[in-house]
């Protein structure tokens, strides 16, 4: 026990003597949380909107006004011809071209139907999809409006307009504030990345410096060395979580509905999984550079398949199956459930036990692959 304590003490000394270490631990998470949470938004705004009005009627003007009124669209200009508009799209100046054909209003009144042409720049497919939804919403509203008006005025008999109105209610995040949704996820990312990188590079560093060889000829026990090496990073992981939660609460005002102790309980087990991966990586690499690349490879896959940026439900079935092996996935799920929904231990017990299982498997593998003799 004395030996373990001494290694822990030595490890902390080394961490705090490393000049680059303190900013990495405390400043980087803060910056990343502030920058990413403000920038990583799924909302599509400032859509560059242009139109070709060949009709010049009351109806066409009304339609364009509706677009102007929307906060998502920025009506930049009107074109006289489609060629001219296409040219601007080619240059990337406009995102959407709405073409209102000749006799748009007349056809609406006479034949009760008319057509519009919408061209959307789909270089960014996801954004194009969202833009399409916005445009469809505006046109549908316009359509309903004009239909009722036309019916009322043009038909001899008065018909009461009948519409089905839907008012969605967004549970757990009333205002659809994406920060509420993203901040806990990004916090997970930070805790994972920092502990994985720091721990995987740590033992490799001893290999690189040659100190591991000196340690290996001492009667120190495997478990003493591993616990002594990894415990400081377990503590650091919890410190980073605390710093992140404070930022989430104080700066982003993210609700924390559930029991915060539950988050700490889960994180403390989760960190074992990450440290196990880190130890495993460092056992199988010779230099810090190799360790860094391998850790980075896993982090990228884990992050992209965690449901943090893209919902897991929309992935193909095989990818969904792969995410079952991704520890970050469970952490993202849990931190969102606990913070936004107020989940209790019973609600997260499934994820919790999976993580406990992973912790045992990964650490078992890692300890087995650590050899003092080769």
């Amino acid at each position: 026990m004395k030996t373990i304590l001494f290694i822990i003490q030595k490890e902390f000394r080394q961490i705090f003597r490393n000049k680059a270490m303190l900013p990495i631990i405390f400043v980087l998470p803060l910056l990343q949380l502030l920058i990413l949470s403000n920038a990583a938004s799924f909302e599509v705004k400032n859509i560059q909107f242009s139109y070709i009005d060949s009709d010049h009627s009351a109806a066409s003007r009304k339609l364009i006004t509706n677009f102007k009124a929307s906060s998502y669209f920025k009506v930049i200009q009107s074109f006289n011809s489609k060629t001219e508009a296409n040219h601007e799209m080619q240059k990337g100046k406009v995102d959407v071209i709405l073409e209102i054909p000749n006799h748009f209003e007349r056809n609406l009144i006479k034949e009760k139907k008319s057509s519009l042409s919408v061209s959307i720049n789909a270089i960014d497919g996801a954004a194009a999809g969202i833009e399409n939804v916005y445009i469809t919403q505006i046109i549908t509203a316009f359509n309903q409006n004009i239909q009722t008006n036309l019916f009322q005025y043009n038909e001899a008999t008065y018909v009461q307009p009948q519409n089905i109105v839907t008012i969605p209610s967004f549970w757990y995040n009333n205002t659809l504030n994406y920060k509420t949704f993203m901040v806990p996820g990004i916090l997970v990312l930070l805790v994972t990345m920092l502990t994985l990188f720091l721990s995987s590079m740590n033992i490799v560093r001893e290999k690189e410096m040659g100190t591991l060889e000196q340690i290996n000829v001492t009667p120190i026990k495997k478990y003493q060395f591993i616990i002594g090496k990894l415990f400081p990073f377990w503590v650091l992981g919890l410190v980073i979580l605390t710093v992140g939660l404070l930022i989430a609460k104080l700066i982003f005002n993210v609700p924390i509905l559930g029991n915060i102790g539950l988050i700490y309980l889960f994180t403390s087990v989760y960190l074992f999984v990450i440290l196990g991966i880190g130890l495993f990586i460092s056992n199988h690499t010779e230099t810090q550079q190799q360790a860094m690349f391998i850790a980075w490879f896993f982090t990228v896959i884990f992050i992209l398949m965690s449901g943090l940026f893209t919902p897991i439900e929309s992935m193909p079935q095989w990818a969904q199956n792969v995410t079952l092996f991704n520890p970050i996935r469970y952490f993202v799920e849990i931190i969102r459930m606990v913070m936004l929904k107020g989940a209790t231990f019973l609600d997260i017990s499934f994820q919790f036990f999976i993580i406990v299982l992973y912790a045992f498997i990964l650490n078992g593998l890692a300890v087995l692959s650590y050899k003092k003799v080769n």
Partner: protein
Amino acid sequence: MSIIVQNISKSYNDIKAVENISFEVKEGELFGLIGPDGAGKTTIFRILTTLLLSNEGSATVADFDVVKDYKSIRNSVGYMPGKFSLYQDLTVEENLTFFATIFGTTIEENYDLIKDIYIQIEPFKKRRAGALSGGMKQKLALCCALIHKPKVLFLDEPTTGVDPVSRKEFWEMLKQLQKKGITILVSTPYMDEAAMCDRIALIQKGKILKIDSPENVTKKYDKIIYDIRAKDTYQLIQDLKHYPSQYSVFAFGEYLHYIDKKQNFNSTELLTYLQNKNHTEIEIHISNPTIEDVFMDL
């Protein structure tokens, strides 16, 4: 016997690092493994300090088998690897305390053993190990290897990259430690250091060529070596190599060491030969064989 090595072989993939090596080191002996880089010295050290398993053969250190009793060996040997391998970001004192603690002892307990060495670095005990000079680092490493009072001390090329004065000091320290009853196995690529050992093993390409005391190694050498010098050294080597009865020629300090095949070699004949080749300032005289000469001849 403090160290017994029997028929040890070790190969990395297809490359044989050491082949069928056997030697014994008596208790309290200062034993040297002398050989060039890549001879297999470090491999022997790593096998004896239980860091590496040999492919064949057996070895015991302080009466413990290196495979079966590796735990006991780790308690009773001190190892100083060739590369400085202490924590550069910890201070001198912290490094020493750290190694004392993981060996389950304290600095005070074995202070008398390291006192003579530690006293030289004590003024810098608050300095980080990375900021020490080469000689200081080596003294600290020796202190750390001694802190648990080992029975056997393994020193892998301890003087490589150290200045001549510190090297001399270091060997004096080893002599002192030997007096305290510690068996020392030391390796070095420097032939001149070999003379400081009680016995040496000349090792090359993974094989032991000779084991004897340094005096006997040179005494038993039967060939006569001539120191030869002339103004144009390069041309001298070329011409000596073309001398009909030459056995070997190699540079040795400011002289060339020349050995002849013939028993009745006459140096005046060689002198005329060299004069005919337009050499000036020629010097030829008999020299005492050194370990390097023996080594070059093996």
